[in-house]
């Protein structure tokens, strides 16, 4: 596969050009702002679930933590859409950086961790006096670490790329 031709083609598409080169604040600036807000919702709601599992705010019943899922889903959707737009704008910059794949892997693992935390949650309607299994607590700790690493990986992408556009290949 001719990657240079592929990246050149993507970067020449109207959407890519608009996101990258438009003077409008609604283009690149709004998209990165949305990406930060979506992150706050997705990661923040996940942190809330992890903290509860770890034993903080113990009077929140474990069984109502699924109320946080819509917040996570909205954050994830906002970031999937804004993330794809950013990838369209700078495909060479992202896809030639190994850290980008690390970031996606960390997010995938964090989502798997969140899912398995919920699946293992003791179905307890009472104000959870029942101790949380230590395995579940370990998963919550792992989840916090994975999200922190994903966030850091995202920030470091801006400082670790080798090629900005297909032109540099």
């Amino acid at each position, binding site marked *: 596969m001719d990657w240079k031709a592929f990246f050149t083609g993507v970067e020449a598409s109207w959407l890519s050009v608009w996101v990258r080169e438009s003077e409008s*604040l609604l283009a690149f*600036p709004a998209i*990165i*702002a949305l990406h*930060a*807000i979506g*992150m*706050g*919702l997705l*990661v*923040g*709601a*996940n*942190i*809330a679930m992890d*903290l*509860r599992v770890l034993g*903080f*705010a*113990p*009077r*929140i*019943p474990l069984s*109502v933590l699924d*109320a*946080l899922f819509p*917040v996570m889903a909205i954050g994830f959707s906002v970031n999937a859409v804004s993330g794809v737009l950013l990838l369209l704008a700078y495909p060479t910059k992202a896809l030639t950086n190994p850290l980008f794949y690390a970031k996606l892997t960390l997010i995938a693992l964090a989502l798997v961790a969140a899912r398995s935390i919920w699946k293992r949650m003791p179905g307890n309607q009472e104000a959870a006096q029942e101790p949380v299994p230590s395995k579940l607590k370990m998963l919550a700790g792992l989840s916090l670490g994975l*999200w*922190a690493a994903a*966030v*850091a990986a*995202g*920030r*470091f992408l*801006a*400082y670790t790329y080798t090629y900005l556009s297909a032109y540099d290949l």
Partner: protein
Amino acid sequence: MDPVLEFLEAWLKDTYIHHLMNENRWAWPVSESLHFMGLSLLFGIVGLYDLRLIGFLKRLPMAALHRLIPWGVLGYGINLMSGLTFLSARPDQYIHNPSFQVKLLFMTGAGINVTVFYLMSYGLVKEMGSGMEAPVRARIAGAVSLACWTGVIVCGRLITFFRPPAFYWCFWC
């Protein structure tokens, strides 16, 4: 030249943090990573409480959810510290930056709102369990908080597009 900026630059230029941020190539991204983790803590935790005040997520008991607020405050602390590292490194890029100034305005708005909330409305909601609806003034406090912190994030991300000298706001000059 602006005396505020002059004073800041003279004061900061010999500080350890100013040198670290400008000379170590990883200092800036590390500080930014902390800033974004703090953002997630603050916006995530406080935002959930705001949503609950407004009337969403009613299955979550309000009083119990409030026990997570200190983690949001921790996020605020992390971001105050990491934010100061950016300011110390390049005061000229922030002091006159319109987006940074509006960001500070939103932070002030959030600060006034949270003070008014704890003085006037918190007493009405602090015992509330799940399913209960907050009174109007507490709901307004939640909406104002969510709007202010969203404004803070948006302005924070826009700082880089409003850099001096192309952009220059100085109401005290």
